[in-house]
């Protein structure tokens, strides 16, 4: 009989933590949503902190890329398509210019939200006389389908503006910094489904920290939490797999091969974070005909005020790095709310601020 969430909670409460502060980071919007909706933080001993880290691909998509997408969408004959989350992400555009894809759409740009890369190819097929630009942000889970689509011979009028990122390099960057901010990691279940659990071995082998891959049920998350807490107490870190029904050590070999056939991995910019080595996907030369960046050189951006930065007053960069909780942002629940979001973490369904708001946290934390 599998253990219930209550069983796992009882096991965790029985651990001899004696008020020892333990910070456990997750790097997946889906994990954070389950934690927030199930109210796990309130059910755990108060010495255990669950910290949402860099788990939102929309939030870390470079501001420059969103600005570039807006400029492309405003071109004659371009039809721009993107996952729906991207449309409301704000950029720091000069006064009078559209500050999101949604605003560009309101000014007549042809922008279509989609839910699958297959729809981007279908749009290109249905509009052969137009250039269709697919602005694709996402982590490995999403970029594997993007790779599949671009390798399945899409029409020549389909271009990709890629903002895909690998998840683990941001965690490595945190661990190599002087302020990692966590003592154990819950690794993302669907990223690991594609890439394999082994991608997270470096947490244990290079940094000596406990790690466990988790699924999305409270049971799986609590099992992973129990695992990393025991690893800490026993001073025996290892990579545990608490999502074995989907995750294998090496992942989906086909998906990994297709990712490698479609993309190289290069240093890449993360919004609010900066450049991280070997963390972003670029189309390989044999797919150059589908690369929007080669067809349309990036707009001259050096003079634009606050290019690359988060909006003024927005603490999304700190939220993304797990250095503050969403409700510790200066704007949370005041100027920044889901109906009028200021930062990307309040825009995206994967953003920690949006998730906290949806789970009922409506007021900023008292200082």
């Amino acid at each position: 009989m599998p253990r219930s969430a209550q069983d796992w909670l009882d096991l965790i409460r029985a651990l001899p933590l004696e008020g020892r502060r333990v910070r456990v980071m997750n790097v997946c919007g889906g994990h954070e949503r389950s934690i927030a909706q199930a109210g796990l933080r309130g059910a755990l001993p108060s010495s255990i902190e669950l910290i949402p880290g860099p788990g939102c691909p929309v939030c870390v998509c470079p501001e420059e890329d969103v600005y570039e997408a807006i400029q492309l969408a405003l071109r004659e004959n371009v039809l721009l398509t993107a996952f729906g989350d991207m449309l409301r992400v704000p950029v720091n555009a000069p006064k009078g210019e559209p500050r999101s894809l949604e605003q560009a759409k309101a000014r007549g740009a042809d922008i279509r939200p989609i839910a699958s890369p297959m729809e981007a190819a279908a749009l290109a097929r249905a509009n052969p006389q137009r250039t269709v630009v697919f602005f694709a942000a996402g982590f490995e889970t999403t970029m594997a389908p993007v790779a599949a689509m671009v390798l399945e011979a899409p029409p020549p009028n389909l271009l990709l503006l890629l903002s895909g990122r690998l998840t683990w390099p941001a965690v490595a960057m945190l661990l190599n910094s002087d302020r990692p901010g966590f003592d154990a990691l819950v690794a993302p279940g669907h990223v690991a489904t594609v890439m394999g659990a082994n991608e997270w071995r470096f947490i244990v082998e290079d940094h000596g920290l406990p790690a466990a891959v988790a699924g999305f049920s409270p049971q799986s998350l609590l099992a992973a939490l129990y695992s990393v807490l025991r690893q800490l107490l026993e001073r025996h870190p290892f990579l545990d797999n608490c999502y074995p029904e989907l995750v294998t050590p090496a992942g989906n070999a086909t998906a990994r091969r297709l990712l490698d056939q479609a993309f190289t991995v290069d240093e890449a910019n993360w919004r609010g974070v900066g450049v991280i080595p070997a963390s972003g996907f670029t189309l390989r030369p044999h797919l150059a005909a589908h690369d929007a960046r080669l067809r349309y050189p990036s707009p001259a951006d050096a003079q634009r005020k606050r290019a690359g930065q988060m909006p003024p007053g927005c603490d999304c960069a700190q939220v993304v790095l797990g250095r503050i909780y969403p409700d510790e942002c200066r704007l949370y629940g005041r100027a920044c709310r889901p109906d009028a979001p200021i930062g990307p973490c309040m825009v995206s369904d994967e953003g920690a601020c949006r998730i906290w708001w949806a789970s009922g946290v409506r007021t900023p934390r008292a200082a």
Partner: protein
Amino acid sequence: MCLGIPMEILDINGYIARCGARGVEREVNLFLLQETPLKPGDHVIVHVGYALQKISPEEARSAWELFDQMLDAPGHA
């Protein structure tokens, strides 16, 4: 964005499968599972229209129960 949804394969035509879940039908691309033997009645985890991994019917059921809880949760955006 990285969440996958379990679906049952209803029929397969090349790399495209018609899949169903709770009465909803969708076209699902099987390109990422081209080396995995699949047939109608099998279950897969689907993310942005692509099947990522085959799962057992029991796992599909428990994943759907989780999904229902999340959709029923108050304040779901």
